């Protein structure tokens, strides 16, 4: 039990908060058919991490987070410019820009002191969930006091994630109308003036913050899955944007927590000494959830409509 409180609960908390932060804003990306922007941002923050350290010369996590956020934003803006200037699809622009940023990051890391920045590409890619633990508090007078000291002992990345989650939910909730219009009908948004451009800019900044805050804890491998997969899994069931966001969180939370617990404990139950990377396992489970959700939706339709084939089937040529 003590082990659970010390190791598993902080990691689960980190995953849940990262999920709320990333998946909430990921819904907008999926609606706009930009699911891959997350992948690009997650790779592009690397030079910012190293740059933040080089510029300030301190090992303060805030400098690195700020650098990462700046690099992520710069990559997204640059990719947008490239897509516009070359008139190729945004996929190509993202691919060119994020590989350049990632290469720059690796080069900086190798030349400027992988020794001083205790950062290795492995950690950036696969996360450091295993290092988030709470030293279990000493015996306290009451349960309340015990919980207080447990919360006080939570590592800093979890608080950063909590802030990112709050920002993500607030942005999505307050700007639902504007962002919906901009996602579904950009020309109307532009013409009517009902949904000004800054709303999208706020969303992009919030998304970058969520990605940066999460990947510090869970690694870019899981960030990619957290942004895109919950929204993609919820899409067939959704009737409204807020409904889709709520469904994506409700569907992904149990999957992510279950996958984490499986990764952390299944090897021991099976009697092997091998460790399974938690971030990778959760990412894999979330991705597997997407086709499964679509399958479940087919079945659900059949039962709800009394075995009538879905319109998707009707559209097929005879």
């Amino acid at each position: 039990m003590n082990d659970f409180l010390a190791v598993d609960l902080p990691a689960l908390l980190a995953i849940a908060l990262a999920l709320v932060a990333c998946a909430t804003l990921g819904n907008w990306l999926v609606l706009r058919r930009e699911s891959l922007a997350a992948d690009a941002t997650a790779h592009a923050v690397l030079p910012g991490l190293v740059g933040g350290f080089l510029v300030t010369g301190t090992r303060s996590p805030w400098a690195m987070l700020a650098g990462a956020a700046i690099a992520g934003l710069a990559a997204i803006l640059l990719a947008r410019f490239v897509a516009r200037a070359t008139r190729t699809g945004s996929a190509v622009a993202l691919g060119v820009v994020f590989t350049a940023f990632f290469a720059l990051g690796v080069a900086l890391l190798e030349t400027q002191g992988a020794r001083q920045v205790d950062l290795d590409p492995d950690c950036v890619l696969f996360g450091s969930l295993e290092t988030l633990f709470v030293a279990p508090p000493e015996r306290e007078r009451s349960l309340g006091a015990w919980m207080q000291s447990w919360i006080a002992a939570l590592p800093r990345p979890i608080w950063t994630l909590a802030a990112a989650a709050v920002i993500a939910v607030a942005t999505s909730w307050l700007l639902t109308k504007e962002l919906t219009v901009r996602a579904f009908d950009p020309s109307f948004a532009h013409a009517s003036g009902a949904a000004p451009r800054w709303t999208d800019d706020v969303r992009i900044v919030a998304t970058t913050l969520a990605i940066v805050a999460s990947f510090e804890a869970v690694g870019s491998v899981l960030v990619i899955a957290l942004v895109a997969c919950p929204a993609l899994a919820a899409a067939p069931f959704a009737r409204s944007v807020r409904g889709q966001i709520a469904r994506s969180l409700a569907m992904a939370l149990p999957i992510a927590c279950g996958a984490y617990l499986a990764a952390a404990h299944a090897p021991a139950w099976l009697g092997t000494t091998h460790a399974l990377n938690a971030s990778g396992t959760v990412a894999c489970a979330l991705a597997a959830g997407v086709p499964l959700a679509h399958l479940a939706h087919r079945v659900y339709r059949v039962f709800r409509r009394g075995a009538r084939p879905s319109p998707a089937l009707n559209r097929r040529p005879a």
Partner: protein
Amino acid sequence: MTIGANTILVLAGCALFGAVAGATGTFVLARRRALVSDVAGHAALPGVALGFLLGEATGLGGRSPALLLTCATITALLAALCVAPLARLRRLGDDGATATMLAGSFGLGAALLSLVQSHSSGTQGGIQSLLLGSAAAMRAADVAALAVLSVGVLVALALLARGLALIAFDEEHARVAGVPVRALDLALIILLVACVVAGLQVAGVVLVVAFILTPAATARLFAGSLRTTAVRAAVLGATTAVGGVLASLVLDTIPTGSAMTLAAALVFFAALVVRRTPKIARRGA
């Protein structure tokens, strides 16, 4: 800086790979499959880890390059082939299918890699180098294998260029004219995966995408037929690869894969600045 026999070997290998990836990338971009290369690159990771585990289990040893690359080819091909059927699911679309496959295969790779790392044997060095690439460590056998694969891909591209151009620009017409669209698509994905696997040692799973996309995107900035664009992309790919290797020799600490990617990106942005006439800027929005 001295250019020894080994350096010439590395230069030859990188130039060859740059050329082949550039040429393949042109057709991939024309067919709007840019990010399938990303999926294939990331999906090679679980294959490599699987190859290691298989090698350990069967007693072949975890670092048998043939086994690692075979497994990488299989997983990359499977993932790349899964993108199209996934994209046909309701509301998933191309980007959603790509993101799903990317997240899934990368996650699987991370999980399997952690199994590899908790393996007691100390022979995992080869796997780390496939993550970020280790062009400087190429040996004659590697370059020879790369050369065989490259010539194969180039010959296949030359033979299929006509059909690939047809399906890229007018799929309906190609279908009506009796061109085997599915077979050509499959061939393109196989060539792409061959490129990605060949490039693992040169560039690693993340940066291999740059070799396929960046020179092709640069060549596309200038008007020309698909064939000329492919040739230009091949020349650009080879040149930037050589430039990157030389830069990493001079600057010493920059890893070769990153240097080549940065060289290609620099050329792309320089070309973009040259080509960005006001007319394009106005019509771009």
